[in-house]
């Protein structure tokens, strides 16, 4: 593999973690989040700051994971107060708030961001291995959660909160758990990103990025792991393979997001299911 392929694959790995983590919140537990990139950013900034004061990589990544998870749990508390459309707007607010706050803080580098993040001290290929290890781990973890008792509880909450409550499920605890797990994973992805580019600016973690992650989940099929992973790989690689699309990358995202929702709201996974069903029947 050349340097270009390694760098591309690392990017794909990071986005897989992000998409899978958002899928936990929005897909499994039905809590729509338009601010996922904020937690990605929290992870990245935590890692950037700590690595600059000399913390080793395994500690910084852990700290990014925890910081995003803790703040994510706090944001998750809002999901106990507001639902659906209101929650969508609040999480969107979180996305803008994150960028708005970071931009004005001297110690976070303001508009200029943080540069000169220390190297991870591995070869590029080894780092790719690390990223892919975490990506696979997050896929396995998310698969395990889906199959577990908790996965069924998430399903119930996503389907109908009130019924879930009547069934005796602790809806609040499950929602918070989904937010904590999903946002912590996004924090980890942010940490990996910080070491990957060694330079971060606030706009990388803005609302558009949140939408990009959401589009991966929506195109893959909300709630389906393999659909989401497949869509992520497709959406990250497509602009690279078709260089001429790169200028129209956003247009492509917009049109794709729109057409999937308009014509196949269950995404790729719904499409595959339909194909399989046709074959069977």
């Amino acid at each position, binding site marked *: 593999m050349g340097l270009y392929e390694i760098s591309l694959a690392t990017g794909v790995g990071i986005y897989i973690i992000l998409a899978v983590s958002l899928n936990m919140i929005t897909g499994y537990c039905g809590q729509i989040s338009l601010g996922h990139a904020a937690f990605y950013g929290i992870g990245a900034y935590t890692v950037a700051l700590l690595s600059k004061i000399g913390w080793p990589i395994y500690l910084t990544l852990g700290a990014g994971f925890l910081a995003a998870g803790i703040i994510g749990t706090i944001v998750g508390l809002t999901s106990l*107060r507001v639902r659906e459309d209101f929650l969508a707007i*609040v999480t969107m607010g979180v996305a*803008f708030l994150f960028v708005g*706050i970071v931009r004005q803080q001297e110690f976070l580098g303001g508009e200029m961001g943080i540069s000169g993040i220390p190297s991870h001290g591995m070869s590029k290929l080894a780092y790719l291995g690390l990223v892919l290890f975490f990506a696979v781990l997050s896929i396995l973890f998310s698969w395990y959660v889906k199959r577990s008792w908790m996965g069924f509880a998430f399903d119930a909450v996503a389907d109908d909160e009130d019924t879930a409550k009547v069934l005796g499920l602790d809806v609040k605890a499950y929602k918070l758990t989904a937010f904590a797990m999903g946002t912590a994973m996004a924090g980890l992805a942010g940490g990996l990103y910080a070491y990957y580019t060694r330079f971060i600016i606030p706009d990388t973690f803005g*609302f558009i990025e949140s939408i990009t992650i*959401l589009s991966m989940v929506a195109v893959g099929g909300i709630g389906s792991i393999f659909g989401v992973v497949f869509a992520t790989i497709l959406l990250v690689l497509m602009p690279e393979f078709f260089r001429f699309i790169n200028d129209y990358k956003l247009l492509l995202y917009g049109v794709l997001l729109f057409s999937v*929702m*308009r014509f196949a709201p269950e995404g790729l996974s719904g499409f595959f299911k339909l194909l399989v069903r046709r074959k069977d029947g």
Partner: protein
Amino acid sequence: MLFIELFIQGLIQGSTYAIIAVGLTLIYGLLRVLHVAHAGLFTLGAYLGVVLTNQTGSLSLGILLAALISGIVGMAIYRLVYEPMLSKPPYVALIASIGLYIGMEEIFRLVFGPFGMSFSSAPLQDIVVFFGIHLRTCQIITVVTNVVLLGILAWIAQRTRIGTGWRATVDDPQMSACFGINPIKVRYMVFFTGSALAAVAGVMVALLTNIVEPTMGAVPSYKSLAIIVLGGLGNVFGTLIASLVLGILEAFGTIYIGDLLDRDAIAFAFLIIVLMIKPTGIFTSR
């Protein structure tokens, strides 16, 4: 003096937010759809206003045509986008609308170029002095237009048969259909009115800043979503108050807490604080 100037700035900004958000809240009340692409129509209106004014040389003709065309595009969006999605879960329409908005922004970039457009000779830029406060004519025109348009809208909604039909459909679509009100017609009308108003707001902002860019709708779009949530989704009066409060809050916030928060983040900080205290917005509808 600074106080009054900031207050007036806030009022100008707030009344513009109101004009954008009022259409959004009407649409939400009717369809329970968060119409993010509304800001696309705001941008479309601004572009059409500038292009048509430059072509015809008449600002009023430009505004009128911009409103008309955007209104028709708004109706088309309802018919082609939202109508087939109404039976789906709410996130479907929301995500589709975000996709549509991003797509529109990119299409503006392709059609009108990435660098923005201006009036060839910007109208209404003379300076008027009121009790020592310097204002441009277009700032006064903006506030007056916004107030007049909102007044007309309120009059239609409260005093005419059409308005009664709107309100009845928002309250109870089935019952109002039983009374012979065509809910589909009401939806078209609301989309037309809302989009036309957004377009007028677009032209006004173009007059104030004399630059129209593809991304000019992004911030108003997300902010007006925050506004309609603050106003209690679907509540028109609440939306007006929330718009004005936010406009003024931003004007002062930029000066006094600008070191802490970005201007655009103030709206969302305010939103989150309010929603945590009162999850249904300042004014609860129903």
